[in-house]
């Protein structure tokens, strides 16, 4: 097959095209995956532990929300409510680390953080995430203006939580001067969720009650992250694809002499296009597979990079992978076949002369 011959006998050129396509596809994958990953982690954190979320009315950001924790007693007494817990989320310098996530939570939610060693924190104590623990070697740590004893370390399914610190909600309340950032409620019967939302809303005029599903869809920060990531991904996507198309078109233009010879020997335009089609298909498919493997390896290693403290995480959906596959092949073919088609219409001797010049 001429297509394979052309690729194997020009290893430098083939490696160059292969690398260009691989880098372009990897850029698309990594940028869109990291964006998807950030949203995915926040969603997972909220979705997994509750059906209803209660925040301060009119405050769209959980970091600034303040909900009176005493409402929990009334909530727990409602029919079809199975459990509830409160959380304070904030960020503060932790020891020598300039900023880290602080998670203050009620005792019934501490088990969400899987204990790696030590014990769950009592008053005046903190539990360090696995990632941040690697950077803090002392037995106590200063958070804000208070020193806490380290009670142990934890791991979490939500990557960036491992870069943070867990403490009981009372200590966090003093640190951030609030009662709770939000309260999450689990219901025993999912079809009663909307009914319970209404009942909770009647308990206190200062709170906003939503299902976690609608909260995630409407949460302002998610929208900002989602829109920003969409713009960045679209730019990476466009740049990557334009890169692939321009590399392919440069390669085709550098082979005009060869096409001219083939036409002079009586080979049809279809013959040239067909061979170039297979060449491009082989090249873009193999570069795509290589880029996919490399991207998955990078994404898998991200949570283990200490410097990132677990905040940067990525998830690659099948839809994205398929979409990038189709676009890569389409752009590679577009970039190679259009100039090849134009070239094949030119008089053979002009192609040969252009190739020589």
């Amino acid at each position: 097959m001429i297509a394979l011959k052309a690729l194997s006998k020009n290893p430098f050129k083939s490696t160059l095209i292969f690398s260009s396509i691989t880098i372009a596809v990897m850029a698309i994958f990594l940028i869109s995956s990291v964006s998807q990953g950030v949203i995915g982690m926040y969603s997972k954190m909220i979705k997994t532990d509750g059906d209803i979320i209660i925040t301060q009315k009119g405050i769209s950001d959980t970091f600034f929300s303040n909900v009176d924790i005493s409402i929990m007693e009334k909530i727990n007494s409602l029919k079809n409510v199975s459990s509830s817990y409160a959380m304070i989320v904030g960020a503060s310098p932790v020891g020598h680390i300039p900023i880290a996530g602080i998670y203050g939570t009620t005792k019934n939610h501490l088990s969400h953080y899987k204990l790696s060693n030590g014990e769950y924190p009592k008053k005046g104590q903190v539990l360090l995430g696995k990632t941040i623990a690697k950077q803090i070697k002392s037995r106590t740590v200063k958070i804000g203006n208070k020193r806490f004893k380290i009670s142990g370390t934890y791991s979490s399914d939500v990557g960036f939580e491992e870069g943070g610190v867990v403490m009981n909600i009372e200590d966090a309340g003093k640190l951030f001067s609030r009662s709770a950032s939000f309260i999450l409620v689990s219901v025993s019967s999912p079809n009663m969720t909307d009914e319970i939302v209404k009942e909770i809303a009647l308990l206190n005029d200062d709170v906003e009650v939503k299902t976690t599903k609608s909260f995630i869809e409407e949460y302002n920060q998610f929208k900002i992250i989602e829109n920003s990531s969409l713009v960045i991904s679209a730019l990476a996507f466009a740049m990557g694809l334009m890169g692939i198309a321009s590399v392919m078109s440069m390669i085709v233009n550098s082979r005009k002499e060869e096409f001219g010879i083939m036409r002079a020997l009586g080979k049809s335009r279809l013959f040239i296009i067909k061979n170039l089609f297979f060449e491009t298909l082989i090249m873009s498919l193999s570069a795509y597979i290589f880029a996919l493997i490399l991207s998955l390896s990078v994404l898998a290693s991200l949570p283990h990079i200490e410097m990132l403290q677990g905040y940067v995480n990525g998830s690659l959906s099948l839809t994205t992978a398929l979409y990038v596959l189709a676009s890569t092949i389409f752009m590679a073919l577009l970039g190679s076949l259009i100039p090849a088609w134009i070239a094949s219409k030119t008089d053979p001797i002009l192609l040969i002369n252009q190739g020589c010049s």
Partner: protein
Amino acid sequence: MIKVSNVSHFYGDEKVLHDISVEIKEGEFVFLSGDSGSGKSTLLSILSTLLKPSSGELLVNSSSLNEIENLDKFRQENIGFVFQFHYLINYLSVYENIALACGNENKKDIKSLLEDLGILELSSRYPNEISGGQRQRVALARALINKPKIIFADEPTGSLDSKNSKIVYELLERAMKNGTTVVVASHDMQVKEHATQTLRMVDGKIQ
């Protein structure tokens, strides 16, 4: 066999051929002579259907070029080319370069043709693994494989020494004796010894 009437050609604003009319008859060995830039390569390209003239008419066996239904097939079946710089495809072996030019029915003749030209042992080598003279013989084999009715050669010995040049001209003469029409554009006057007709070009005109 091939006839051009009032053919002119421009490269941009520059007129390189001026109203040329020529007829090449079957079985001839035509020598197109002239200095560099005289227009002989352009005329050869037009005669061989590799270039459309800016004006004038090209008739092949009394048919206009536009009347030929499949020009690619016509070239493959009727015309052979030898260029100055051989123009072999570097990622194909000697055998594959020749096979690329021919239809399936002629593939069986490749080895005997290579043997005939004394380059059978080169069949699995690549163009960058053989000498200039050997490359030109491969190019000649590629031009001869389909037993074309006419061979066009543009400065076929331009990059060869006198020994290899002699071999190439002898092979072209042998092709002519086997019934192939040969048209050679060259400034090498050695060709004249083999030619049955000489056309001298000066400044885009035939003298």
